[in-house]
């Protein structure tokens, strides 16, 4: 089926849940008005990124009024959005929730929490333990949060779990200025999104935020990538944007006929070899 995905390239305020909820609601309404079927937000869209000790203060339970409100809105448009989730045992996760038809369809807790260079996520947050694809009205989807995508195994697992659409919610800081046209971090991501789509014959939707936090910029450049690895739509660099990407449903079918790598992918060999590696590691 053909459908339209909106990438809400917003500029969240650091630690301001109410303001960011208002931003999200405005973007959702905009998506509905524009005829979009799914709206994707950045990582930690409801909170901002460099939270540090604010993490517990902005964390939401899955039954919080904010998530309830988004659930209600998902009766009119499907929503993927990032926030800090607090579990019943008071662990805090960098999570993304997928809402559709008034229900929570899936929650992904970021597995790979970067803690190097300018990142310090694992100091403040707990690590997710699984990658799972899930069913939606657009077929099977897999969600990744930023750094997750830099681990080859993550999108691979989702694709093997049947995902044909990958959503990546991101808060990627811009860095690495050189003489080339774009920032180093932007160029690296652009390679990654297109290559991932090409390897797995999946559509990729990448939503990155903009704005500055303590002098660190987030570069935007949200993208829609076709299953052949072509970038079809891209948001503004360093500025707020609202990208509407029309998905040609047939392109995925055609790509999978043309290059049936996923059909031929041998899960049994992969599992066998990974098990062997794991076994030998323990020796």
């Amino acid at each position, binding site marked *: 089926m053909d459908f339209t995905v909106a990438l809400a390239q917003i500029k969240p*305020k*650091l*630690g*301001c849940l109410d303001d960011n909820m208002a931003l999200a609601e405005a973007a959702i309404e905009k998506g509905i008005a524009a005829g979009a079927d799914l709206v994707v937000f950045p990582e930690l869209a409801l909170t901002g990124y*460099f*939270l*540090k*000790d*604010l993490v517990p203060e902005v964390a939401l339970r899955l039954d919080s009024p904010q998530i309830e409100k988004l659930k209600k809105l998902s009766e009119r448009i499907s929503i993927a959005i990032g926030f800090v989730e607090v579990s019943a045992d008071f662990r805090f996760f960098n999570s993304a929730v997928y809402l559709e038809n008034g229900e929570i369809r899936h929650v992904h807790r970021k597995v790979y929490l970067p803690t190097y260079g300018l990142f310090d996520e694992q100091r403040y947050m707990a690590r997710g333990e699984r990658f799972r694809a899930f069913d939606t009205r657009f077929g099977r989807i897999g969600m990744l949060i930023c750094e997750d995508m830099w681990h080859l195994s993550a999108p691979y697992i989702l694709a093997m779990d049947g995902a044909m659409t990958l959503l990546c919610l991101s808060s990627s800081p*811009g860095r690495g*200025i*050189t*003489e*080339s*046209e*774009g*920032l180093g971090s932007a160029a690296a991501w652009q390679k990654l999104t297109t290559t991932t789509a090409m390897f797995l014959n999946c559509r990729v939707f990448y939503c990155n935020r903009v*704005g*500055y*936090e*303590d*002098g660190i*910029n987030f570069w935007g450049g949200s993208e829609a990538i076709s299953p052949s690895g072509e970038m079809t739509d891209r948001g503004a*660099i*360093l500025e707020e944007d609202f990208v509407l990407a029309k998905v040609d449903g047939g392109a995925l079918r055609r790509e999978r006929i043309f290059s049936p790598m996923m059909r031929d992918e041998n899960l049994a060999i992969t599992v066998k070899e990974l098990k062997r590696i794991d076994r030998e590691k323990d020796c």
Partner: protein
Amino acid sequence: MGGLTVNTKLLRQILVGFVRDEVYKVGVRKGVLGLSGGIDSALVAYIAAEALGPENVHAYCMPYRTSNPESEAHARLVAESLGINFKVLEITPMIDAYFTVTPDADNMRRGNKMARERMTILYDHSAAVGGLVLGTSNKTELLLGYGTLHGDMASALNPIGDIYKSQVWALSEAMGVPHEVIEKKPSADLWAGQTDEQELGFTYREADELLYRMVDQRMSREELIAAGFDPAFIDNVARKVQGSHFKRRLPIIAKVSNRTIDRDFRYARDWGK
């Protein structure tokens, strides 16, 4: 060399966006800066004027009686070409009054006192006009510690603190800073004929080539020597970087509680913004 050459269009976009975003989110619309007549403050004035509009930029030239008159002329040239607010506030009376008490002070103490005098004036005007003080120290100076703590190093926001002097030159060209300002020898202008490079004992270009590899690329001493740098120069610069590190940090606090500011009480400065 490759790494120091930057895409000035993109750099300009990031730095202009930074000033606009970080000033507006505090709830003010204006920027305040000291305009010395040198290239660093000229570049910050260009960035600020583009970010906030020239009418929202307040520049102050604060000469001492021994300052080179050319400096004030260059500051004025920059302000006039941008159409920003400009005022000359001479610091001679305050400085001379202070040094009548301690007349034996050497050049370094006098220079530091002047830098701090200028800082107090900028912060006073920051309150007067309702704007943030914009820093004008570049990455080369900050790494070498070639600045006065709580003096010219003090600011609310610094758009050029992560770009080397060589990159300041390139961006200044791209943004149209007057050539007189770009081409003259960098000077702290504390006494007649003083130049930074003479005082440092090496050129900014040399320092940038080394610092870029040492800091940004984390090359080891052996790798730097293999790349052709003189071991004595490497050690001299490395010593300056380490020796001045205190200038780049907040004062350290004696920890006694469970939650000490900046140690385990950690919030971004943009907390709630």
